[in-house]
């Protein structure tokens, strides 16, 4: 099975270490993983702001970049969810049938459901609070949404439990939005900041040293609040914990 690594624009630019950790993790598990060069963006920022048509060329480009792979795997639940849920509709208008939609996975989902590792060499002797991000939970079903009456599950927790020395916690409002929301963050800045502040505080109340999750975008938002308010907690993408020591 050939895996194409999907590195979203802001991970490429701001958090390349998350991409590196993802690659190392997949490699370590003996998988055939490649990075198709010169990726840019999936088009979600434009579409969520109301300009879905501006995502068309980017969606077509992604189709082209990943056509030779069996799986597309990326370390960003929200971007993956956008490709999975929205690219088909966007591409349909230009008569293209979306192929990525059925083969794209968030890396946690991919590890948990497809690769199913029974052990990892990673060690991370810290308290971490899981950030259950909206699109990861409610679109990709990485964990059971708190609104629904279904048995609790968390693919992130299952994976983190393979890490030695870790203590896993979750905030009280287990999957409340952190207030990022793409351009929402700048169109409704006061609300967005307020939500971010509340969310960081909720994570802090668990006693965790780190907030971790499958979405660097939420982590980036919370990191912005943490730095501004000088709060004693850090953010780290889940792949960096799973790949710790590789």
């Amino acid at each position, binding site marked *: 099975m050939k895996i194409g690594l999907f590195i979203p624009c802001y991970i490429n630019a701001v958090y390349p270490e998350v991409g590196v950790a993802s690659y190392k993790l997949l490699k370590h598990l003996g998988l055939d993983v490649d990075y198709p060069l010169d990726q840019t963006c999936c088009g979600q920022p434009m579409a969520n702001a*109301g*300009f879905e048509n501006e995502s068309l060329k980017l969606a077509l480009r992604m189709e082209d970049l990943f056509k030779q792979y069996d799986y597309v795997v990326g370390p960003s639940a929200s971007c993956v969810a956008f490709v999975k849920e929205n690219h088909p509709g966007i591409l349909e208008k230009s008569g293209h049938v979306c192929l990525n939609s059925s083969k794209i996975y968030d890396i946690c989902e991919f590890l948990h459901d497809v690769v199913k590792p029974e052990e990892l060499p990673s060690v991370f002797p810290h308290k971490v609070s899981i950030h259950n991000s909206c699109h990861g939970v409610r679109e990709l079903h990485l964990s059971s949404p708190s609104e629904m009456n279904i048995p609790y599950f968390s693919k992130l927790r299952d994976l983190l439990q393979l890490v030695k020395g870790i203590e896993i916690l979750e905030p009280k409002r287990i999957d409340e939005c952190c207030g990022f929301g793409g351009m*929402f963050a*700048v169109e409704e800045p006061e609300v967005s900041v307020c939500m971010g502040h509340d969310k960081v505080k909720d994570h802090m109340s668990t006693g965790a040293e780190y907030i971790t999750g499958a979405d660097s975008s939420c982590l*980036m938002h919370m990191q912005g609040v943490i730095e501004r308010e000088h709060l004693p907690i850090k953010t780290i993408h889940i792949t960096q914990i799973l790949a710790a020591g590789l």
Partner: protein
Amino acid sequence: MSTKHSIAAARFIANRKQEAWHDETLWMVRAKRDKMSHSLPEWERLRELACDIKMYSNSHLDTLLEEFEKNAIANGAIVHWAKDAKEHNEIVEKILQQHNAHTLIKSKSMLTEECGMNEYLFSKGYDIVESDLGERILQWMHLHPSHIVMPAIHIKRQEVGEMMERVLGTEKGNSDPTYLTHAVRKNMREKFLTADVAMTGANFAVASTGEIVVCTNEGNADMGTSFPKVHIATFGMEKIVPNQEALGVFTRLLARSGTGQPITTYTSHYRKPEDGGEFHLIIVDNGRSDILAKPDHIRTLNCIRCGECMNTCPVYRRTGGYSYTYFIPGPIGINLGMLKNPEEYSDNVSACSLCLSCSNVCPVKIDLGEQIYRWRQDLDKIGKASSEKKVMSGGMKFLMERPALFNTALKFAPLVNKLPRFMIYNGLNAWGKGRELPTFAKESFNDMWKKNKIQ
């Protein structure tokens, strides 16, 4: 880039204590709802059923409404059809005229808010008395509801106490809820006894029996309809359900979703007029049949007005009902406002981070968040897209469609990290209002890969 919502929201949040209290109060309702919904193993199945029944009912409105009318007439009711708010208000006025009535006692109805009925009848010299406690408080304060189920949720009891000192002459400084409720009850008793005509909304209208169902916690609808000989019940035509079996699905969902109770204290079924009295039913369209023609938004007609999408909405909880420009706030209000008049109510579409919690709590499975996403796609067409957002989006498109340019930009991006603080954090940078900007990496992933640095 500001919208009317974002400006009003900033004002609401400026009072951080009040905002935190509002957020926490509504979150408690959400938590109660979770407890209730988790106590029913068949909860998700019930939601499926409720959605299916509503989709069926709304696609069979022609036959179900006529069946309802036929049965209601056979029960002795008088049925009216109102195509819009104006017709609705005139029908009510005509009934009042026929009975030479002056005072109308009314239980809570968002439809009469929608039709602006109180203002209309006041202007004609009639007196309308709201009998729901929250609505009565608002009437005394000359305010509109900020929530569709808990209309005065934004007001603290101390404020209510101060208002009642002026209006009812209650003890100074006494804001004990029981004391205040007793004072209102005493005041209301006289109104209940002397009103000429009673008015209620309807949570459900049952086609197979011609009855309507009104759900309240205070029993004020029952008290209000007990004395006057004339009862007017008004409802939007999407309130129709096929039969009592279907009704049972909704009464199990409504209060559990809306307030976290197993059922409302009173679930009253009205079928016939009082002996010697009249029972008027007004079936209102007011734009609902237009929604039937919009497949992307048709599910909004499923709404049973439980209000839970407001309680779960992280934006509503932190910004309050008055920050929205439509009379119904929160996720359902954003959508209904756009269906009513997209040019007028587009300012509410920004009030959503697309977290999709609303779609998950909705007992009738309205795809609320997904519909807001779809409305955003329409804003440019109607000339309501934010010009700054358009420029930002267009700029991103230009850059992202040119990988070589994007890669070059990333090479220079780290320079931004070194800019003096005043150039980065100024009034132009909305991100910088309460957050530090992320730092660009020295080397992008793409460059590292090209240089074979990732092993």
